[in-house]
């Protein structure tokens, strides 16, 4: 690895670490409701749900949006408009816009570049393209961070141990790569999926009595 590759790995590690101030810890993508309802109660249930979200839900759609904004940063506003419009609920809209806005604010303050508020995968794509970070690595680690964030939410909300949480992340690492590879050369007509039960959970979260998360 040359120093440029190492710098790119450092950047992705910084941007996608839970310490980067995007507020990721506050969002659960509807998991809060499913845990509250007892629909997800163990590692196997969590892994199965996350596999569906990765392959047929926002994992796939975000990866397609990210790849398209990365390959044509001059069209980032168009991709960002689509990304925002694709949100299936008020909370999922806020989840992607809030994180993207936080990401762009801190990244532009630290290293320059765009501070335009955009949906999270588009904001990350613009920064990665600007720094010359590779698309495959950006996509794979974006998905991995998405999974890790939701596993962390589940570990806080259900009696799921830290080790079981890491087992789920490990079990899904191959899916992150598969989805990233499939999305890298797509065009925007390929967004979308069928994670309709995950979307329903986010609608139901809005009326949940006691909420640990903002989505």
């Amino acid at each position, binding site marked *: 690895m040359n120093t440029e590759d190492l710098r790119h790995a450092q950047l992705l590690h910084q941007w996608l670490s839970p310490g980067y101030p995007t507020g990721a810890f506050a969002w659960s993508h509807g998991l809060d409701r499913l845990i509250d309802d007892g629909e997800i109660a163990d590692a196997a249930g969590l892994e199965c749900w996350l596999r569906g979200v990765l392959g047929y*839900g926002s994992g796939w759609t975000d990866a397609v949006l990210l790849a398209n904004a990365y390959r044509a940063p001059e069209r980032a506003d168009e991709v960002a408009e689509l990304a925002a*419009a694709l949100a299936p609920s008020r909370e999922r809209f806020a989840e992607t816009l809030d994180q993207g806005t936080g990401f762009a604010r801190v990244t532009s303050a630290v290293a320059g570049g765009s501070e335009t508020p955009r949906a999270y995968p588009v904001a990350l794509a613009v920064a990665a393209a600007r720094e010359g970070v590779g698309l495959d690595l950006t996509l794979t680690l974006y998905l991995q961070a998405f999974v890790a964030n939701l596993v962390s939410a589940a570990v806080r909300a259900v009696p799921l141990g830290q080790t079981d949480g890491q087992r789920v992340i490990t079990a899904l690492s191959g899916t992150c790569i598969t989805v990233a590879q499939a999305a890298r050369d797509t065009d925007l007509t390929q967004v979308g999926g069928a994670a309709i039960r995950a979307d329903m959970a986010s609608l139901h979260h809005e009326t949940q009595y006691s909420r640990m998360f903002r989505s």
Partner: protein
Amino acid sequence: MQQLRTLSGTPTAPHQRAQGHARVVFGSHGRLTRLRQQGSAKAMLPRVHNTMPEVVFVNTCGGVTGGDHFRWELSVEQGAAVTGTTQAAERLYQASSGRGRIETVLRAGNGARLHWLPMETILFQECSVDRQIDVELEGDAEFLGVEALILGRAAMGEVLRNAHFTDNWRIRRNGRLVQAEAFRLSGDLADVLGGSATLGGVGALATIVLSARDAADRLEPLRARLPDSVTCGASAWNGQLVVRLHAPDHRPLKVALIEILTWLRGASLPRVWNM
């Protein structure tokens, strides 16, 4: 399967490709100003006892399969109102080759009301269709729309195993994209049909969208009315009110849709909904 042959002996496709285009425009005075029907697409204007005129679109082929192309257009100009519907469920049949395409274009001028309330779409095993629904709103136009999907004919014991269907909605107001829906099924459906995040237990689904100035104000009264006979939820943001419904099969879904849509539009639904 034995191929049909023409006199010259060359094989021909067993299915004749169908195409149709119907375009209806209502002027600002609320009367029909343009009606164009071509191919297998027809548009009828039944006499209605309602303040909103109705347009009923008809696919005279009774379904869509690979290679077919249908285009439905309904426009209502400034200040006027119209309801669009279809005569029957849209059946997406098994395709021997190619993709079918359905395009729906709905336009409403400033102050106009457009309600798009078609019958459900039924996906058959090995169907292959891409559908695009473009809604273009100006000023404070009101749009109410619904699409219901039935995944195979559960009542007949049919399970979808393999199909291609994409459904893309793009709703724009004054040229700006305010909502996009992208449903996508393609290929082997075993994983997606059984998944807890995806379609597990869902045989029929529907999405209702109300795009209007008072959309957010209607969320709480609507939530109090949501039926518990199906799984459903509602949300409102950016001037859009969205209701999503899931059911094991079509019957309970339709009952719930009639209840919610009737309340949202403050008027009864086109007659075809009660047949």
